[in-house]
């Protein structure tokens, strides 16, 4: 079995190279190859993912082994990757039709799938880093093909992710140095001292890949600039899967992190801050895709919070939320794509009343939005309940933050749904039709999985999530596996929060008379208004702040550099030219000079030789 594992990496990559080598005029062949490759990938994954197998071969010497390990956790992620890859590719065949850089788009898509598989399966940190960095390149390429401003956004994402990847590189080097091996399954470190530094560095790499604050600010920009299927596959699903997978590997396998340590506290604080700040930003957005992208950041907070609690319920909730989020968020992005393609815009102020024109899309949106808001009995509800459970165990403040996030999430989705699908249909949208079948099928498929994971949550929990936890943690005895939430009190609180969100929405709607402005009373609330304005202008963007400082440092550096440059380019060059011209002037072409030089040389040589006697 193990010998087939590399297929998961080679098939997408070879297909990508094939696609790149086919000229643009040839139609449908590239789509066919892409669909074929993701289908093969899905089939191979379906055959392989249940088993435990490793594949290894010597690689590059120095003890670096090309070693891939398929077990229940990585198999689960690979299966999800294959599923999303397959569905998004099907969706793209219609959505991307007629767009520019089609070949590059499919190539990057497939390469991303291959690199994600590689990073997930790799059982060697160096090998994992190789695929991890590869993903960075493909993200860059994928954003860069988007349009006019895309290159700037691509560079931004490249810098942000690149810096955090550098942290991860340092962390890997440190961990490898401390442990004497780079084999992930052989690493076991405490979270203290130097290995604590390694832990933090690795966590930075993992959560920034997942898109957590403060490494998030490229995602909303990319939502506007990059092709939409990119958002559905990378920031919404693959990167979340990969980042949270690696975070879980770090905290559960590589480092013996336990509840109550500073590491746990750090993760929980990051989680709550991410939840709240991102969802506050999401609430005021007036663009379908941008609003979703802030939620893509916000929901990461739940996962980090869940894993950061370090208690079984929280970890299980975090991981369950990871897969749920990948499902509903990609579904939401796909509905966004449908609206963009059919209605021609994603600006919420220009949309409205699409419910009657696009009922299937609305249904999918409704299910996914209910999931993300944590409405029972959809999947998001159950994973959030588990996270709440874990958070409450560790401190009331974390629970309160998470619940507030839930309230705001629900509010923002009420606003989004209201603005896009309800209300009055605009004149220019009279002729809008439902999206074509290849776009509907992936949405329906994902939405139905959302419903399935909600109604029958014991299936994913028992088969995918629980085996991930170490056996001794006592997880199997938890009643959550049956599908019922742990505590009725939490459920009540959640329902209250949802009801509050609904009331808040109606209040806003009554006040302004429009769905899209339903959150304006929060937006323009006395204390928040100034902060929001600054955030909208990008002043609070950590990237911009960092760039501001970087500009200062680079100016200082530039001055030093000029000085050194002057030393090299002016002083040394001028001195060299001076010497050169002096030498040239000495060569005056006179026989006498040359003969005299020779004789002087002769005298010197003889003197030198005789001196030694």
């Amino acid at each position, binding site marked *: 079995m193990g010998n087939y594992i590399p297929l998961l990496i080679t098939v997408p990559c070879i297909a990508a190279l094939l696609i790149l080598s086919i000229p643009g005029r040839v139609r449908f062949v590239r789509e066919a190859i892409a669909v074929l490759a993701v289908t093969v990938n899905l089939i191979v994954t379906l055959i392989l993912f249940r088993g435990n197998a490793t594949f290894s071969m010597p690689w590059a010497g120095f003890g670096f082994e090309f070693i891939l390990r398929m077990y229940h956790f990585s198999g689960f992620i690979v299966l999800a990757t294959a599923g999303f890859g397959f569905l998004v590719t099907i969706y793209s065949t219609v959505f991307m039709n007629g767009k520019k850089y089609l070949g590059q788009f499919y190539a990057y898509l497939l390469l991303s799938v291959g690199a994600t598989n590689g990073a997930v399966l790799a059982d060697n940190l160096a090998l994992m880093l190789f695929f991890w960095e590869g993903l960075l390149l493909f993200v860059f390429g994928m954003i860069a093909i988007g349009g006019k401003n895309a290159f700037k956004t691509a560079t931004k994402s490249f810098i942000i992710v690149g810096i955090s990847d550098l942290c991860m590189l340092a962390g890997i080097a440190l961990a490898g140095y401390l442990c004497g091996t780079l084999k992930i399954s052989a690493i076991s470190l405490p979270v203290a001292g130097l290995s604590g530094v390694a832990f933090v560095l690795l966590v930075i790499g993992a959560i920034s890949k997942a898109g957590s604050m403060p490494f998030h600010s490229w995602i909303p920009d990319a939502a506007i600039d990059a092709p939409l299927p990119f958002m559905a596959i990378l920031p919404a699903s693959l990167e979340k899967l990969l980042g949270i997978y690696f975070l879980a590997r770090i905290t559960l396998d590589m480092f013996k992190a336990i509840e109550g340590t500073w590491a746990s506290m750090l993760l929980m604080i990051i989680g709550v801050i991410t939840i709240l700040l991102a969802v506050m930003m999401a609430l005021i957005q007036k663009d379908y895709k941008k609003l979703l992208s802030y939620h893509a950041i916000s929901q990461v907070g739940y996962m980090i919070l869940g894993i950061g609690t370090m208690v079984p319920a929280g970890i299980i909730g975090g991981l369950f939320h990871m897969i749920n989020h990948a499902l509903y968020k990609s579904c939401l992005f796909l509905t966004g794509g449908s609206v963009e393609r059919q209605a021609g815009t994603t600006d919420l102020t220009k949309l409205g009343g699409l419910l009657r024109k696009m009922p299937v899309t609305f249904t999918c949106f409704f299910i996914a939005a209910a999931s993300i808001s944590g409405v029972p009995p959809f999947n998001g509800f159950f994973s959030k309940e588990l996270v709440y459970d874990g958070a409450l165990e560790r401190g009331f403040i974390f629970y309160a933050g998470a619940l507030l996030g839930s309230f705001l999430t629900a509010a923002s989705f009420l606003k989004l749904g209201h603005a896009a699908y309800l209300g009055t249909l605009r004149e220019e949208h009279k002729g809008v039709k439902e999206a074509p079948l290849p776009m509907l099928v992936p949405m329906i498929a994902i939405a139905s999985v959302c419903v399935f994971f909600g109604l029958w949550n014991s299936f994913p929990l028992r088969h995918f999530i629980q085996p991930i936890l170490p056996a001794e943690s006592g997880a199997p005895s938890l009643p959550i596996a049956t599908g019922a939430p742990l505590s009725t009190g939490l459920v009540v609180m959640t329902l209250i929060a949802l009801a509050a969100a609904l009331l808040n929405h109606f209040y806003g709607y009554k006040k302004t008379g429009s769905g899209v402005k339903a959150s304006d009373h929060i937006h323009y609330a006395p204390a928040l208004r100034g902060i929001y304005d600054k955030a909208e202008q990008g002043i609070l963007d950590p990237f911009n702040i960092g760039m501001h400082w970087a500009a200062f440092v680079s100016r200082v550096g530039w001055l030093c550099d000029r000085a050194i440059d002057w030393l090299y380019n002016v002083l040394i060059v001028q001195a*060299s*030219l001076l*010497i*050169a*011209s002096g*030498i*040239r002037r000495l*060569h005056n*072409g006179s*026989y006498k*000079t*040359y*003969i005299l*030089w*020779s004789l*002087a*040389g*002769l005298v010197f*040589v*003889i003197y*030198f*030789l*005789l*001196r*030694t*006697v």
Partner: protein
Amino acid sequence: MPSLVILVPLIALLILNLPLGEVMRKASFWVALGFFIFQTVLLFCHHFRCICGSERFINSFFGMDVSVDHLSFMVMFLVNIVALTSLLVARHAIKDSDARFNFINLIVIASAGMNGVTVAKDIFSLYVFLEVTAVALFIAIALQREPRALEGAFKYILLSSIATVMMLTSIAVLFFAAGDTSFASLKSALQVSGKSPVLLAAIGVFICGLFIKGGLVPFHGWLPDAYSAAPAPVSVLLAGIVTKVSGIYTLMRLVAAVFGFKAAVCDVLLFGGTLSILVGAFAALGQKDFKRMLAYSSISQVGYIIVGLGTGTALGIAGAIFHFFNHAIFKTLLFVNAAAVEESTGLRNMNKMGGLSSRMPVTGATSVMALLSNAGIPPLAGFWSKVIIIIALWVSGRYAYAVIAILAAVVTLAYLLIMQRKVFFGNIRPELDGTKEAGPGYVIASVVLAAITVGAGIFFPYVFDHVIIPARSALLP
């Protein structure tokens, strides 16, 4: 075979001068081409022990006391390669058929002289063949009787005669001490009385004579004028191999076989070599004339060879021999490129050129390879030899020399890149728009030489083990 290297050129000369009138003038190029190829084949046959019986007979018949070892083999191979290149260049560059015929005769004579230098085992025979080479080159430089060329030739003659006087004086003294002029007896005489100031002075005088021949600073006055004034094929021959054989090879051979690696001799070599490296590199930086720049670059590169020899260690000598090989190849290539540029544009001033790469792609590309090899950029051959020399300097504790050698390599890269940018890169100047490749001879020669440079760099371990190390053992067993 050792005596054949003298006899075969003589026979070729005879064939060339058969009284066949115009027929032979027309065919002279092909006869000479055939001769050099035949000589190369003969060399390889001998080297790989394919023929044995007949050569012993010839040797005994003529009774010449000569010998061929791996180093002589390598040098003679280079002589043939460069002579072939020069022949190809002459086919295009010398338009007049009479002048070309004369030049071809002179190449054959010069090659006989250089063959003699490489096989001689006797210091006086060495001197005689140095004179043969020199006379052939005087005539060749002055062949077209342009005022500049005459001036260059005259400087060469003048400084060469000073070198001759120095060498003869030294030979007289050494002969006085040894009673014979063969390398072996001179060496034993020097071993017996190595501390004698008179003999040391004689060694110094001889080394200075060879420094003049090899064009080391401050004995180099003739070199830039002669290189830049000579007609294209002559400068290829002169820069590519003649100076190296008559100055550098002889120095290697004599220091190893006669003078011995005395500390004082090594210091003279190191000092002279380093001075040449520096002065040559800086002087090259300030030149406008393409060939003159290359001439100063030659001085600088020859300095590296001498410095490598001056370390007196096995590694340093191996580096020197390898740099000798590389320099012969890439400097010939650069001179071929300069000749091609001059042929097709009529220009030598680099400031008036520009963008020629777009019109002369082969010349531009091979020039890049030659300059990278010359500047010591991996993985080209020049990199390995320079690195070996610098490592040898460092290992033998001459840190200052090693640092200077590294810094000069930077200057080398600078002036060569300036050359490349001025001549080949950038946009084509409007007045040079109609430029084309100069001719198939140039193209063939430059491609073959570039292939050797790149090949020797990439297959460096093989070349080093099978060519350079045996050649080094000929000097330092």
